Every structure is written in C-alpha cells, then in structure tokens.
C-alpha cells in the first residue's frame, strides 16, 4: 500500500475577508501525479503554497511526510521544503545574475550541503532538459529556458514531492511534451510524486488524478 506523503484536512485560507480555500481536503500518495485545475484567480497557487509549507497562515490540518506542518517551527518547515519538496514556481523565481548551474545549486549552497555531491546530478538534469551548462546569466535566457532551469532546480535535491505551479505555461507544445516526458522518466527512476497546477489537456491526461478547485474546495474530475 502506498504511503501518504501529504495529507490536508479542512484547510481554510482567508485573505482579509475572502475565503480562498474553504475547508478543502487533499491527499497525495507516494509516486502519484495529481493535477490541479481551476479558473484563474480561484486559489490554485495559494493551495500549492499551503501544501508546500510556504504559507503557514491557514486553518486546518496538514501532514507533510508525517510532520504536523501546523505545529512545526519555521526551521522544520524549511527542512521539509529543502529535503522533501521541490518547487517549480509560476514565475520561476531564479536569481537573474546567476547562470543555470548556480541557480540549480542554490538550495544546496545555502543549506550548507556538499555541492560537489549534487553537481554531477545537476549537470545531468540540465543536459537532459536541453539547457546549455555555461556561464550565461539566466536573465539572458528565454522564458522557456528559464522554466527548464527552474525545473532542474526543483529536481536536483531529489525531492519526494514535486510541486509545480503551471510548469508549462511558458513552453511551446513540443517543449511541454519534452518536459513531462522527462518528468515521467525521472518519476519512474526516482519515484517522486507530483502536484501540479495545469491547464493543458494533453498533460492533464498524464495525471493519475485531476482535481478542480471550485469555490475554495477541491473536486475530483476523473481518475
């Protein structure tokens, strides 16, 4: 039986007087690929922020890798984000003056882990994503290239869960397919789970489950 990686119950998230998440539940099993859809502004990124231990200001229950995220300290949440989760942000969140490899190595460098140990893995992922491993700062890269650098950074710490917020928004169809081909391959190799906010129907068809966020609550669309 697959282990539960993330389990959320009755999550309520309010911005001023607006309830964006209104008592929603969520669960993610080991190796699972769950897609989240919904209209723009419905709160998909907010949901990912809560599930990804980025936003601790919510009501409800949340277990990430067995850790009670509601009671965890900021250091414990940071450790979860660093060791257990990988993020592909909608706006990439790269440091523009650094090249692709340095951006990918950023979490390892700042957390004080051995960068030599992950350097080869980072170079391999960069290469498999079709990126040049050179000194060009990422501010000079196209949106698609930056998207792939962000993907590589999310994967390099070998996470158990990949959180992706519209990872294919900047990609053409071919790059979109290539990215998810690689993610599928890596998922099989490494066994991580994916929670992704997606719109592309072709990619949605690859998901194990598709959830639609409506009126602050997740609804199962199809298996």
């Amino acid at each position, binding site marked *: 039986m697959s282990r539960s990686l993330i389990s959320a119950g009755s999550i309520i998230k309010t911005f001023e007087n607006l309830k964006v998440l209104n008592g929603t539940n969520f669960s993610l099993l080991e190796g699972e690929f769950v897609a989240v859809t919904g209209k723009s502004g419905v709160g998909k990124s907010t949901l990912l922020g809560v599930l990804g231990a980025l936003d601790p200001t919510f009501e409800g229950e949340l277990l990430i890798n067995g850790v009670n995220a509601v009671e965890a300290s900021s250091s414990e949440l940071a450790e979860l984000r660093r060791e257990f989760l990988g993020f592909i942000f909608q*706006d990439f*969140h790269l*440091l523009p003056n650094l090249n692709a490899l340095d951006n990918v190595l950023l*979490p390892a460098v*700042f957390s*004080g882990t051995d960068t030599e140990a992950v350097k080869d893995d980072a170079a391999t992922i960069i290469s498999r994503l079709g990126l040049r491993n050179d000194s060009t700062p990422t501010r000079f890269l196209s949106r698609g290239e930056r998207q792939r650098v962000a993907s590589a950074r999310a994967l390099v710490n070998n996470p158990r869960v990949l959180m992706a917020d519209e990872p294919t928004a900047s990609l053409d169809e071919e790059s979109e397919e290539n990215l998810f081909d690689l993610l599928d391959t890596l998922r099989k190799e490494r066994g991580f789970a994916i929670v992704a906010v997606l719109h592309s129907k072709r990619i949605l068809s690859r998901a194990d489950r598709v959830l639609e966020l409506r009126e602050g609550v997740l609804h199962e669309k199809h298996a």
Partner: protein
Amino acid sequence: MKNMRKAISLWNRGHWKDYVFSQGMLLIASLLLVFFISIGLGVGNILQRFLSSDLPEEQVRITPMGVQAGFFQTERGGTEITESTMDSLAAMPQVERIDPQVYAHVPAYLRGLLGGQNYYTDITLEGVSSAFVPDSMLQYIDWNYTLADSSMKPLPIILSENLLILYNAGFAESNGLMGLTPEGVIGLEVRVNVGSSSIASLQSPPINIRAEIVGTSRNMALFALAVPIEFVEEVNALYLPDDRHTYSALMVTASEAEDVPEIVRYAEEMGLSAETRRGIAQKAEILVGVVTAALGALAAAILFSAVASAIHTLVADLKNRSYALGVLVALGTRRERLVYIFAFQIFFMSLFSTVFGGLLGCGLSYIVSSTLLNLLPVLKMAVSSLAVYPVGWLSAGLGLVLVISTVSAWFFFRKILATPVTELLRR
C-alpha cells in the same frame, strides 16, 4: 560554516557595486573619526602646553584689573596696588608672605649674539623679589642688583619661556639656527638697553647694561624679563620720577594651599584680579574642553550622517533584494542561516572599510600635522606632532562604527526575513 564563501559569492554576483557607496561612506566615517580624534587630542595637548603654569599651589598672583604687562600696558584703571593694598593683604592671618612685582614703565630692549647672529627684541622689565626665583637657582645667583652694580656684575635676568618659543619659531627658523632650550640659554650674556626701544624713547639718555640669563619661567608675560625688583624701582624713579609708586603684581604666599580661596576672595573684593594655579588649570581645562567638545561634536555629526547613509544604503539594498531572499527561504534555507551569512558578510565588509578608513585617517592626520608644523614653526617648538594616536580610543571608535553598521544591518535583515515567504516572493 560550509559553503559560506560560495554562498556570499553567489548572493553578491552582479551586486558588488551596490556596496561601494555604503562601504565608501563607512570608510569616510572611519577616516574622519580617526582624523578628528587624533587632531583633537593634539590640539588639546598644545593648549595644555601653552596654558600650563608652574605657579606653586599655595601662591596667588594678584594684579590690577584690566592692566597689561609693564610698558606694553594698553589700559590702566580701577584699583591699583599700593603700599596700603599690600599692608591690607599682609594683615590676613592666612597670608604667610607677599613678594611684590613692579613693571618698569620705561621702554627697553634686549640684544645679544645668539647662535652667531645678532638678536634684538623689545622687552618689558618685570621687577621681582628673590621669592620669584626657585630656591635651587638662588644657591648659584645673586638676586640683588642696582644701577651701581652695572660696572661690576651682569644684571641677572629670567626669560619668559614663551619668548624662547617665539625666538625658535621666528628668528632661529628664518636664519637656519638651532633652537634654544630653557637649559641651553642659562649663562648666556646679552645686553639690556633701558630708556629706549624700537618704538619709543625717553628724553633721558638710555642706559646699556650687561646682563646674564640665569633662568626661565612660564609665569611671565611674553616679552617680559624678570629682574631684581630694586633695579626696576630705581629705573622707574630715574626716568619717571613723578609717577606714583605702585606695584604691578603681588605674589602672595598662603600659609597653606587651603587658604588660597580666602585670599582670592579678599583680593577680588578689593577690585583686584587674582590668579591661582587651580584657576589657570581650570581655564586651560575649560578651553581644552570647549575645543575638544567642538571637534567631538563635529566628528560625531559627520560620523552620524556617514553611518546613517551607509546603513540606509545597506538596508535599501536588502529591501530591494527581499524577493531574492524570499527565493532562498522558499527553497528551504533556514532564516537563521541567512541572517548568519549576511551579518558575517556585512561584518567583514565593514571591518575592511573601518580599518582601511582608520588607516587613511591616521595618514591624513599625519599629513595635516606635518604641514601645519612646517607652516607654523611656533607649534613645532611646542609639540613634536599635532596628531596623537591613542590606540585604545581609536580602536573603540572604529569598533563602535563596526558594531553600529553590523548590528543595524543584522537587525533590518532579521526584520525583512520575518516577513512571510509568500509575501517576499510577491515583491
């Protein structure tokens, strides 16, 4: 800490120039701090040197108000010191003895061969009793002299040390001569001319007398020569027989130092001016205090504005990059580690700026000191350097700059990192 250098290098890539201004301000703050401390203390030393007195603690120098030294007096008026004034003071139980001083109201000059060059200066003769002369000196000199002795022995004279400074700074400097020290002038023979000077002469013919320098003193007016009091009284009577006999000063010796304030109070009640060692020291302290406070306030104002600018720039830079901080936190870097890394960076950058600025400040004060001493030789004779380098004070000052900048940056950095990461990522 592991990867510290790499982390700092990645964080600052493309941003080093953002630190140039803030670190430049810190450097200037340190430079000015060291400069003002160094020069300020040097100026204090000079003032102390010029204002110091060897007046004994139990002595009071009583003079008429508003009357300046001897022939050069510019104002007379108020209470004069007469025999009855002296008797009145002598009646006080606290007074042990009184030694009167008389200025010659007659123009005079001194001429001598100093360092192989003819030296000339107008002077004022200040008649003092043997009490003015230190006991150690009295063993070797005879402090009795009248005009009748002029053919047999030289007139004993005591030079003002300030006159020596003036000689060294002016005459000796311009003629390339060696400077004179108080010890070096003792025994020198000169000529004293009484009855005329470069600016005045009397109808009676002047008298030219052989004189010998027997000592130096700080308790004299700049151009005064202390000579035996009988000689000055004789000269005044000879050239100005109609002048009323008054004293220019009284050196009053109290039975004990504690009695000095009572004598001062009594003299001031009589409308006279009383000067004591403590009073001179207090005046010197006040003057030095005012100068030091003014320089300190100026340094503090510059330091405050420079440190404030530096901190403002550092904080502005941190605020501008709060998004990047959000990225690092989102990727799982602990906030405490980020605070540690950046406080470390700010500390070392500030350390470099303050130490380098401090060294430049030392260099600048040295250059200013050398330049001023070359331009104003009178200073050169008083002190060997105008710049003082008290390592403890300078280190404390620079340490303060360092602590203020690092702690401020650390404080604001913590404040930024207390912001929720989702908000940081939206900036």
